[in-house]
């Protein structure tokens, strides 16, 4: 369970909302998209000062020991703001893997650096818990934890302080931390979403530290935590885009009346509202199931996985359609939400995979 009470969580959320409004508005976002990292490093450090980067890290390692509900709350607001920071990788998946491993104490410094905002972690590999799984990855584990080969789709790979490589090898998943001080080659890839920074990493006998002692259950739990956090991020983003769209329908006039008075448009808006609220319910149920260690958590997470993926895709796509020509311009914000939606569709598993997993949980029901 979380060490954070519900009322505290609401207070943290309100502070985060104020901060993001002031420091991560659209203008700032667009300016930062031109920079190396795609986001402002100062904003990342301020999130650390607010305690948010260590939100799931144990107090023993400088965090505040929150649950997936707390990570989800932060992710929803980050999603709303479109801030392209590596929160899920650095603050949810990596710390959970490290803390579940046998080397948690040895890696204590990495954990506290994450909480302090001085270390970010990029995750790559062909394992399902790699946020953007690279099926063509050629990573090989050589003797004495040396890693060679190539992996793409490593988000923020060029700027992270550590790589976390999740490699499926001989029917098990093994995870390695590789410090950015190690010698390896990085080549940035071009992303459709102008704020994102995927990279190809080439390693030649690079030294890694294995996160030993990770059991299949641990890996699965961490993957579920990642999916639930992503679902929350998507709900925040889709709700923001939906609100912008409803406002537009109220204020844009054609034929002498607000276009939102046309049933053809208001019916789409009503259907999208159902999608947004359903996604919100599903994401909340998933985070809550993990935070309370519900035995049906895997089902709740799979449900949120595809409900939120599809809803974010549909809401952002319809947002462009409902805006008409203005949203076909790069100046309008709609395409940024639409690109982010498309970028998250394959993150931590696509909708068809989640649906299959969801159905499987029903097949085994009594």
């Amino acid at each position, binding site marked *: 369970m979380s060490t954070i009470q519900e009322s505290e969580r609401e207070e943290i959320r309100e502070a985060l909302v104020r901060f993001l409004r002031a420091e991560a508005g659209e203008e700032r976002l667009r300016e930062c998209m031109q920079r190396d990292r795609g986001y402002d490093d100062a904003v990342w450090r301020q999130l650390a000062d607010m305690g948010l980067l260590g939100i799931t890290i144990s107090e023993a390692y400088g965090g505040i020991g929150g649950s997936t509900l707390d990570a989800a709350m932060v992710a929803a607001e980050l999603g709303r703001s479109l801030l392209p920071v590596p929160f899920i990788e650095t603050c949810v998946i990596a710390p959970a893997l490290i803390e579940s491993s046998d080397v948690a104490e040895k890696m204590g410094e990495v954990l506290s650096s994450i909480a302090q905002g001085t270390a970010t972690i990029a995750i790559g590999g062909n394992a399902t818990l790699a946020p953007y799984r690279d099926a063509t990855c050629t990573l090989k584990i050589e003797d004495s934890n040396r890693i060679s080969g190539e992996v793409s789709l490593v988000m923020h790979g060029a700027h992270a302080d550590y790589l976390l490589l999740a490699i499926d090898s001989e029917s098990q998943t093994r995870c390695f931390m590789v410090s950015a001080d190690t010698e390896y080659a990085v080549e940035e890839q071009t992303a459709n979403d102008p704020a994102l920074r995927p990279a190809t990493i080439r390693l030649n006998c690079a030294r890694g530290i294995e996160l030993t002692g990770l059991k299949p259950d641990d890996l699965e739990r961490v993957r579920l935590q990642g999916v639930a956090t992503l679902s929350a991020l998507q709900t925040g983003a889709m709700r923001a885009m939906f609100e912008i769209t*409803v406002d537009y*329908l*109220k204020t844009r006039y054609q034929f002498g*009346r*607000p276009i*939102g*008075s*046309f*049933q053809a448009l*208001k*019916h789409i*808006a*009503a*259907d999208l*509202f*159902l999608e947004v*609220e*359903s996604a*919100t*319910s*599903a994401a*909340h*149920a998933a985070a809550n199931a993990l935070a309370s260690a519900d035995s*049906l958590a895997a089902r709740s997470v799979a*449900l949120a996985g*595809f*409900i939120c993926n599809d809803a974010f895709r549909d809401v952002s796509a319809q947002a462009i359609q409902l805006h008409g020509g203005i949203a076909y311009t790069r100046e309008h914000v709609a395409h940024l939400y639409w690109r982010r939606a498309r970028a998250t569709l394959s993150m931590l598993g696509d909708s*068809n995979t989640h*649906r*299959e997993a*969801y*159905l499987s949980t*029903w*097949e085994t*029901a*009594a």
Partner: protein
Amino acid sequence: MSQFDTDASPEALRVAVLSWLDTHWDSENRRPLTEPTYERRHWRQQVLEAGLAVPSWPSEWFGLGMTSAQCKVIEKAFAERNAPGTGLDRYHLGAITVFKAGSDALKHEMLPELLTGPICCLLYSEPNAGSDLAGIRTRAERDGEQYVINGQKVWTSNAREADYGMLLARTDWDAPKHRGITFFLFPMKQPGVEIRPINQITGESEFNEIFIENAVVPERFMIGNLNEGWGSFQTAIAYERLIMGQGITGRRRNSATRSRPPLLELAEKTHKLNDPVIRQRLAQALAYREVNNLNNERAMTEMMTKGSMSLMSLSKLAMSRIQHGEAAIATDLLGPEALLDGPDNSDAANTNFDAAKAYMNSIGGGTDQIQRNIIAEKVLGLPKEHEPDKGIAFREVKSGTGPRTTG
């Protein structure tokens, strides 16, 4: 002073209600302790006198002034003892409407009766007033201390059993459509009221057409003021929509999330559970049901904590895609067998019944399209569409029924 304290803890309230039930109700034989058999009127009278029939209403109006959370506690206690009769403040549309919109005199005269015996039916829709309900043409004309009613109503359930009908009738033809309607508590058992059952596409006949010719209603049975019936009616319909969307959820949550769904059984039986396309569709169908349950739980919480009703409006619309969607998958699972029907082909018969019955939710109580208008206008705040009949005398408004034959 009531024996049920509004300041009591939920547990204390539960105990008080259970102990009242244990001195009045035989839960094993499902009858009042004082009577040899269950008779609705007698039992309801006892529940009413205890304030438990309508616990959320104030004590001067037959209730206990309980909050909705406290009413839940009372309902649960009744359920524990298999006892009927509470929660009429949530389910008895006729009594709710009279309570919310009627004059004090009408409430004093009719509520004790409505809450114990008579059945009420709804006389709203007409052949020419469906989605546009305010376009009703049944007329009420004053004749001394009573009104004479002429017209036709449709989609009335329980009409044969009903003692009273909640009647919408036009009393002013020169006012715009919403402002010439009056709401009446209409006595059904009288000459001039003819009831014909409707044969529905499911094979059922739960609804009726009502033909009213020179029937009468006393003036004192007017609910609310003359020509202000539309406002009173809004109170009634809001409850109906709430009940339609909610009916199926809540109580079933546990069994719904833990046990194997029927659609999965049908897929297995028809050897299609390994078809990857079917699997995706099954997952989506089960998901729509589960998210609707989750939405309803959130809606309840939001209503209790913030008084917000916005999520409540979604359930009825969501139920349409659930029911039509599940019937479509079942039809595909059955394949050609779905063209059969009757008792020898029960899977096909059930599926065909469900496919037809799904329209009950997507048309009844306001079509999905009307429901989308309501969500868009009342919840999202989008402007109303241009209304050509707005502000003009009702007798000038155009009307038409549309054709009803083949080809």
